[in-house]
Every structure is written in C-alpha cells, then in structure tokens.
C-alpha cells in the first residue's frame, strides 16, 4: 500500500513526461553559472589581491598615487560586496542595473563572479602574505624583479596554502547559485520548484536535488583533494 504510493510519487516526480531531463538541464545551468562565476571570480580576485599586496609592499615614502586610487577602489569593492546579501545583489543587478536585458543567466554569472571575486581576493591576499618574506627576499637578491619573483616563487607557494580555502569558496559558490531562482533562471532548484508546482509532489523533487547538490559537492571536494596531493610533492620529508 504505502510502497505503491511511494513508487507512484517517484514516477510522477522523475519519470513521467521525461521529467528527469528537466533536472539534467537544471544541473547544466547550475554548473554553467558556477563555472563561469568561478572563472570571473578568480580573475577579479587575483587582480584585487595583487593590487592590494602591491600597494601594501611599496616602500614608505615612495608611494605611487595610481596605486593608491586602485587600492581604494579595491577596498570599496570588497567592503560593499562582502557587506551586502548575495540575494540583494542579484535583485539589484537584474531589476535595477540590467533592467533592459532578458539574459538572466548572464546576469547571474556576472553577479556571482563579482561576488566570488571579493572573497577570492581576500583568500589569495592571505595566501600571498602567508609565504615567508624570505622567499621574496631571496628571489630579489638573485636579481629577479618583483613580477617574476611573484610568479615563480611566491604565487605557487601561496596557491598551495590557499587551496583548501579556495575549495570551500567553490563549494559555497556552487550551492549559492540556487539563489538564481529569484530572477527566474531555471537552474536545478527552480526546476524542482516547477515540478512541485505541477505535480504537488515536494518530497522527491527537493530531496532529489539535495542529493544531487551533495554529490556535486563531494565530487568537487575529491578533485580538490587530488590537486592538493599533487602540489604536496615539495613537502616530502
């Protein structure tokens, strides 16, 4: 009796009318938004982190005014983005700034990328600062200039230090993409909501997508673990 109803609900939620295809499409949208946002976030994050570190590492008395302006912009950016809710940012971007576009996915990618950038910037800045100052000094003492010293010595070591935190950020980003439902993007969460509206089934769609999110996060965590072990080659003792 009970199991029959259970099976019927399951069929209705996933199989009838090939509804599982909608979920797959939803996963595609979720991953797309997360991936583009991650890329944008890393680009912005590195840029902001480098500006802020460069600014802080200038010799006292030899400050460059351009760096001062860039640094202020970077600071305002991180303060505003970290200080306001992501959902509010999404609503402002879609209904105020890009009110004339119907490309909700594009707006979502941009918003999540900008948001992620602020967090990634602080993670990277922390990573750069965590590398012993002696590494930079040794590189400079050999005649390497600032940029190659950063590129070959400091950044690779910083990346290794920040990988766990960066993985966290990626996982948070992936889950936060469920907020795109508020601007009508048909991601995985929106798909479940639509199916719930049609079938009056809540259990299977929502628990179902919860499991899908969980699986995606577990896969990402495993991938990060692999990269971490790769980078740990120079730690062999």
């Amino acid at each position: 009796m009970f199991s029959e109803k259970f099976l019927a609900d399951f069929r209705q939620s996933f199989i009838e009318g090939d509804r599982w295809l909608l979920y797959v499409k939803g996963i595609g949208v979720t991953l797309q938004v997360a991936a583009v946002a991650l890329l944008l976030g890393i680009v912005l994050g590195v840029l902001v982190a480098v500006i802020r570190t460069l600014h802080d590492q200038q010799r006292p008395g030899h400050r460059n005014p351009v760096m001062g302006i860039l640094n202020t912009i970077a600071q305002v950016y991180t303060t505003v983005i970290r200080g306001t809710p992501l959902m509010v940012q999404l609503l402002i971007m879609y209904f105020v700034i890009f009110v004339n576009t119907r490309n909700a996915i594009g707006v979502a990618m941009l918003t999540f990328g900008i948001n992620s950038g602020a967090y990634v910037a602080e993670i990277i800045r922390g990573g750069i600062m965590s590398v012993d100052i002696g590494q930079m000094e040794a590189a400079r003492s050999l005649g390497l200039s600032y940029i190659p010293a950063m590129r070959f010595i400091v950044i690779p070591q910083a990346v290794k230090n920040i990988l766990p935190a960066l993985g966290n950020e990626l996982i948070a980003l992936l889950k936060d993409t469920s907020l795109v439902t508020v601007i009508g993007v048909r991601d995985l969460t929106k798909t479940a909501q639509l199916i719930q509206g049609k079938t009056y089934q809540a259990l299977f769609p929502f628990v179902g997508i919860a499991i899908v999110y969980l699986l995606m996060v577990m896969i990402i965590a495993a991938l990060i673990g692999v990269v971490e072990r790769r980078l740990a080659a120079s730690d062999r003792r």
Partner: protein
Amino acid sequence: MIVVKGLRKSFGDNEVLCGIDEHIYKGEKVVVIGPSGSGKSTFLRCLNMLEYPTGGDLIFDGVSMTDPKSHIDMMRRKMGMVFQHFNLFNNLTILNNMTLAPVQLKIRTRQEAEKDAMELLDRVGLADKAAAYPSQLSGGQKQRIAIVRALAMHPEVMLFDEPTSALDPEMVGEVLDVMKKLAQEGMTMVVVTHEMGFAREVGSRVLFMDGGKITEQGTPQELFNHPKNPRTQDFLSKVL
C-alpha cells in the same frame, strides 16, 4: 668595490644605522661583529638594498644604488646573498633553485645553467641532492645549497647574514668550510657572524658595530688581541 657614504636607516622613530662610512675593496673578507641590535644585519641588508636606506648613499662599481635611475636588479645580479634562514625556494627542486635566476634572466641557457649548477653542487658534495626538495635536506645542507645558489649567478661579492646562526652546532663546520674555500679562491666577502674563530682565521678586516655605528675596526689580530674601545673589550670578553 662598495663605497658606503653616511648610510642611515631608521624604522619609524628607531634609528638603526646612524651614519656609516665604509669602503669594501675587491678581494677583501670583511667580517662584521657586534652585540645583537647593533645594526649588523641591517647594514648588510642595505648593501644590496633589501633594506632601503633612509639617508646616505651606496656606490657599487662606481654607480650609486640609491639613485632612482639605477637598475637595482642588475646590480643585485653581481651581489650574492646568503641568509640566516637559508630561504631556499620551497616549491622548487635543488637544481631548479639554482637555475631559476640564471635562466629566467637569460644569462645562460637551461643546459648551461644545469651544467654549471651540477659543477657547483659537486664542489659542496651535494650533487646527489639535485632532484631533492629543500624540505628533504638538513640545515647544513640547505645552507651549502644557498651558498652555491648565489654563486650560480657568478657574483662579484658575497654577502653573508649570520649564515650559521640557525644551524645545529654539528653542522656549523661544514658551512664554514665552504665559506673558507670560497675565501681562498679570492671572493670578496662581507660576513655578519658570531663565529669569532672564523672571523680570526678568514677575515682580512673585522668591523665592530655598536649602536648603529662602526665603533672599531682593524685586522683580526689587532681587534681580537688588542681591542682599544672599552665596548669592544667588554663584548669580546663575553664571547671569547
């Protein structure tokens, strides 16, 4: 080779170097000694501008280093530096530690740089460590690598910042041996150290620093056997 003129350095309100005038000639082995906080390390770090002087001037091979127009990276190529804490590049193998700068600065091709590096490693008995990472080496081995890494740039002068202070006592000897060999080959050296035996044996001139000034200097015999300044006498009576 290096002329120091009225060198001053302060950190905030704290003046660490209060006007130093000094001349380091080619082939000299200058040993800098003195109590901690006397400014020895800061003086050495100013010589290749890792610390930016707040006053005075440094002239290397006839070119002012503090002049904003002079190319400090080019000058540093000719000045090797060895640090108290080794500062080997943790993310690179020993061989890559040594070849990074010569190859990136396009001084040598990778092949030439590797051949050169292997010869240098051979000289300090560590050729078998070429593929190892710094974390796999002992302190003494790291410091010997740090010395040959600096030598891989074929510098004109070598600066040593307390190279044996972070080592276990039994490893001090192997590092000092490398430095002695280098001295015999005629390298110009400036060494900040607490190893008085090394200063006596290798130094061609010993500088005693106190309170941000060079308060006494002379040959090792003069300075160690007949110190004139009471502060020097006091310091030496405690460390010898």
